[in-house]
C-alpha cells in the first residue's frame, strides 16, 4: 500500500494534526498551571527571597533538575503506572498527555524562574513598603511585570511540546511526528514525511510568531520600545524542529 495520493494522505494528516493539537494543547495548559507556581516558588524560596527557605528551594530545584534531565521517552515509560492511575490507560492520546505535561512542567518552571528573577527587586520592596504581603507581591508585581517574558516562555514550551509529542507515537497517540516516523522512516514514504515536516515547520513558525507578537505587544503596552528582533520566529522554528 502506498500513500502517495493526496486523497489518501489528507484524512491521515488531518487526524494527525488534530491529535497533535489535542495533546500539545492540554499538556501545555497543565504545564503552565503547574510550572508557573513552581517557578515563582523557586524564586520566592531562594536565599534573600520573600519566603527564603533553603531546604524547600533545594528540594524543589533538585526535583526540577531530575525531571528535566530525563529523556522524554524514558519519562514516558517511567510514568506508565502514574498515567494508568490518572487516565485508566497507557495507550492513546490521553495517556500521552500525562508524560508530556509532567515533562513540560519543570521545563516551564525553569523558564518562569528566569523570567521572574528579572523583575526589579525595588518593585517588590515598594509593594512591601505599601503594606503588601507576599501574595500581593506575586499578583501585582512578579506576574504582571514578567508577563511578556512569561508569554515567550509559554511559546518556547509549546514548541518543545510539539517536539516531544512526536515520541508520543510510541504509545499509539498519533500526531504529526508519529506520521513522519511511521511512514517516512519505517516505510520509506519520504513524500509523506516531508509533507509532515513542512506542516510542523509551518505550525511551529506560526505559534512562535503569534507568541512573539503577543509578548511584544505586552511589552509595548508599557510604553517601551520593543527589544525583540523581528525575525526571531525563524530561528525558533529551526530550533523547534531540532527537538523533534
Amino acid at each position: 500500500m502506498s500513500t502517495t495520493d493526496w486523497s489518501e494522505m489528507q484524512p491521515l494528516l488531518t487526524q494527525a494534526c488534530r491529535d497533535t493539537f489535542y495533546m500539545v494543547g492540554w499538556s501545555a495548559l497543565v504545564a503552565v498551571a503547574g510550572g508557573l507556581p513552581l517557578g515563582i516558588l523557586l524564586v520566592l524560596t531562594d536565599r534573600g527571597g520573600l519566603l527564603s527557605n533553603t531546604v524547600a528551594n533545594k528540594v524543589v530545584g533538585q526535583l526540577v533538575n531530575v525531571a528535566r534531565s530525563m529523556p522524554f521517552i524514558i519519562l514516558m515509560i517511567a510514568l506508565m503506572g502514574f498515567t494508568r492511575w490518572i487516565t485508566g490507560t497507557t495507550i492513546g492520546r490521553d495517556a500521552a498527555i500525562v508524560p508530556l505535561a509532567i515533562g513540560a512542567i519543570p521545563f516551564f518552571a525553569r523558564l518562569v524562574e528566569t523570567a521572574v528573577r528579572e523583575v526589579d527587586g525595588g518593585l517588590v520592596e515598594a509593594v512591601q513598603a505599601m503594606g503588601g504581603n507576599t501574595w500581593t507581591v506575586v499578583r501585582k508585581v512578579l506576574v504582571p511585570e514578567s508577563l511578556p517574558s512569561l508569554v515567550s516562555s509559554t511559546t518556547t514550551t509549546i514548541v518543545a511540546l510539539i517536539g516531544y509529542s512526536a515520541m508520543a507515537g510510541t504509545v499509539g497517540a498519533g500526531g504529526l511526528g508519529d506520521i513522519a516516523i511511521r511512514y517516512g522512516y519505517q516505510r520509506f514514504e519520504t513524500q509523506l514525511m516531508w509533507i509532515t515536516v513542512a506542516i510542523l515547520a509551518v505550525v511551529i513558525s506560526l505559534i512562535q510568531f503569534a507568541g512573539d507578537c503577543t509578548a511584544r505587544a505586552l511589552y509595548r503596552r508599557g510604553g517601551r520600545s520593543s527589544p525583540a528582533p523581528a525575525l526571531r520566529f525563524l530561528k525558533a522554528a529551526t530550533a523547534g524542529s531540532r527537538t523533534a
Partner: protein
Amino acid sequence: MHSRTGTPTPVHPTVTETPVITTSGLTKTYRAHRSHGPEVTALDGVDLHVREGEVFGVIGQSGAGKSSLIRCINLLERPTAGTVTVDGQDLTALVGRGRRASRALREARSRIGMVFQHFNLLSSRTVRDNVELPLEILGMSGRDRSRKALDLLDLVGLADKADAHPAQLSGGQKQRVGIARALAGDPKVLLSDEATSALDPETTRSILQLLRDLNRQLGLTVLLITHEMDVVKSICDSAALMERGRVVESGTVGELLATPGSALASALFPVGGEATGTDRTVVDVTFRGESATQPVVSRLARTYNIDISILGAAVDTVGGRQIGRMRIELPGRYEDNVVPVGFLREQGLQVDVVTEQDRQPVPVEEGAHK
C-alpha cells in the same frame, strides 16, 4: 479624606516637639555570606528623633548606613537590636516570628509613605494604576481608588499624565508619580530614600520644592536620606550626619551651627580662606536669626579701628531663617584680639578661633552624584 488634596492652603510649618519617628539603640548587623564570613555592622546603636512636621535629613557617604537606617524605619530590614517607634507605635514589637511581615506591621507600613531613588514604578501599569496600587492593597473600591489617584496626581501636578506609562515620563515626572503613590495611604510620615539622587540639578530642585510644599500643606513629616549636602541645605529643618553606622551629629540646622566644630555646619556653610600671614588671627563667625541682619563687621571695625579682611562667607536661608558663617581675619595674634572677639560674642554671635589644625577638608562630599 479628599479635602487635603483640594485647594492647598499654605500653612506655616508647624514643627511640634512631638516625636513622630524615634529610634533607640538601632543596630543592624549581617553577614556578607550567610553563616561564614565577617560580620558587617550597618547600624551601630542609632538614636534618632524626628519631630512632627519637620523635614529631617540624614546625610552620609555611601556605606555609612543611611540606606539600612531608612529601611529599618518601616522594617523592610529587620534591626538586630533596638526599637523603632513611628507615630507612637513601636513597630519593632509588631514583627512576626517568621520572616514574613505580620498583619499589624503591614498595616503600619501602609501608613508610612516611601519614595525611592529609582522610583520603583510598575512598568506594566499606567501612572494612575501605579498610584492606585497602594489603595488596592488597602482594599478601597474601584471608583474611590480612581478618584483618589487623580486627586493625588493633581496634587503633584501630573493630572494630565494619568494614562501614560512610566516609560513615557521623565525622571522628575516619575518621581512625582512615586510621591503621589507614597501619599495614597494618607501617611503622616514620608520616607525618602535618595529620592533626588538619580535626577539632574534642576529637577532635583523642583522635587525638593514639592516635598517642602507637601510638608507644609499636609503637615507631613519627611525623613530623607541623601548624600548631597545641597538637599539638606535647601529643605531640611534638622539633619543628622552618619559615619560608619553611627549618627555623629544631629539636631536642627540652628543647633548644628551653634555646635563648635560641627562637621555638618561647616559642610552646610563652608568657609575657606587661609590667613594671609603668621601675625594674623582668623575667626569663624556664625550668624543665626536676628544677628544675621546686624552690620557687626563694620561696627567692629569702627569700634576698635582695625582693618578686617573677609576671607570667606556663606549665608543662606535655612528653614526660613537667615543663617550664615563668615571667616574674617584680624590683624595681630589671638592674644591681641581678645577684646574684639569678646565684642563679637557680646553681639550674640558664635565665634570660633581657627587654628591651623582646624582647616581640614570638609568631611562630607557636596553636591556629588553617585
